[in-house]
């Protein structure tokens, strides 16, 4: 492990008088070892282990950063796909006639026939659509829910028929489980749909 240099050898030659004196000899050997350690350029095992540990910790930090970056990219991807899916839902709702939109039959029979195309590969646990009146007080609010693989359900709060409203506020919500994070996440999109389109609506 240790390399003897020319300087070390010259040190040896400086102490010939201690060579034949018992305990002094042991003291001399210890002294030589200490001096050799100080003067040679190698690493001890502990130094090497500590150095490797520092490098490993550095690599582990870099690895964790890359993994975290990948997780964030995945989360951002899911977010954009879910928003795309919700936009599709709103467009599908605009394709319904007013009766089918406001009594819930269109949501169950035409819109919720499958999960939005954009969220293929994402585990969707729930979709909800809430439709409330924009301009008529005391009108029903429709709450539609589609949980996992169960059949969609609709329910109304009390009040006059929602179809009597000239415009409705729609809140579409999608809940899913993150592919890499495993976290349950929810995103919503809100819009207003008026009967017959904006140009035909009869708003106060």
């Amino acid at each position, binding site marked *: 492990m240790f390399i003897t240099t020319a300087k070390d050898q010259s040190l040896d030659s400086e102490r010939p008088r201690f060579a034949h004196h018992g305990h002094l000899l042991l003291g001399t050997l210890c002294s030589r070892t200490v001096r050799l350690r100080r003067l040679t350029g190698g690493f001890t095992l502990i130094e090497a282990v500590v150095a490797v540990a520092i490098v490993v910790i550095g*690599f582990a930090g870099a*690895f964790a950063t*890359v993994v975290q970056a990948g997780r964030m990219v995945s989360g951002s*991807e899911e977010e954009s*796909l879910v928003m795309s899916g919700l936009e599709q839902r709103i*467009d599908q709702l605009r*394709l*319904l006639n007013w009766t089918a939109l406001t009594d819930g039959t269109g949501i169950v029979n035409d819109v919720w026939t499958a999960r939005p*195309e954009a969220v293929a590969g994402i585990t969707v646990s729930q979709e909800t659509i809430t439709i409330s009146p924009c301009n008529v007080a005391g009108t029903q609010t429709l709450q539609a829910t589609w949980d996992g693989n169960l059949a969609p359900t609709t329910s109304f709060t009390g009040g006059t028929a929602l179809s009597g409203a000239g415009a409705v506020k729609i809140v579409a919500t999608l809940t899913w489980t993150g592919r890499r994070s495993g976290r349950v996440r929810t995103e919503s999109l809100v819009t207003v749909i008026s009967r017959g389109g904006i140009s035909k609506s009869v708003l106060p």
Partner: protein
Amino acid sequence: MTALLRFWISLTYTGLNTTSYATRQNDQMRVLDYLKRDIRRASAVEIYNGATLVTDTNTFGGELRLTIPDYYSDSREEDNAIGAKATNVPDDSSGEVAYGTALTVSYSASGGAAVRTEGGTARTLGNAAGVFALSFKNETSGAIRCRVLFDQPMGGSSTRKLRRQVDTLCVPRFEFRN
């Protein structure tokens, strides 16, 4: 030491591939945003499979052609906000409302890039390195199914690819009932 070197190389490729995937994903979402905007405001939508017009609801076509009213008399570059623009005054003398000369916009993939062509001028929306593929299909509901796919070789691997396909339904405004 070899193990550390291999680990470092793998880490570098992972970082590069993560960045590349995020870039392609952004390209893909931009293409979809353009498609949604243009389809919604179009007055006519046609899907072509080569030179053949697709009229059924089962066949995918590789080109989408849109006729869009020219609402603005705007000669600026799309990404240059400096300059003047004016709205085209609607004309109903022919019995229907018209805004200037209608624009013809088409979407297709060319050499792996997602390309939008307006009035003969092609602009790349998704980088060619992404190896993009676009396909379109009529839905019975009146919506247009847009499929945007990128399939890019993964750095550091000869067999694996960065691949993502997104389908979404876009609806022209003239199909809306409400």
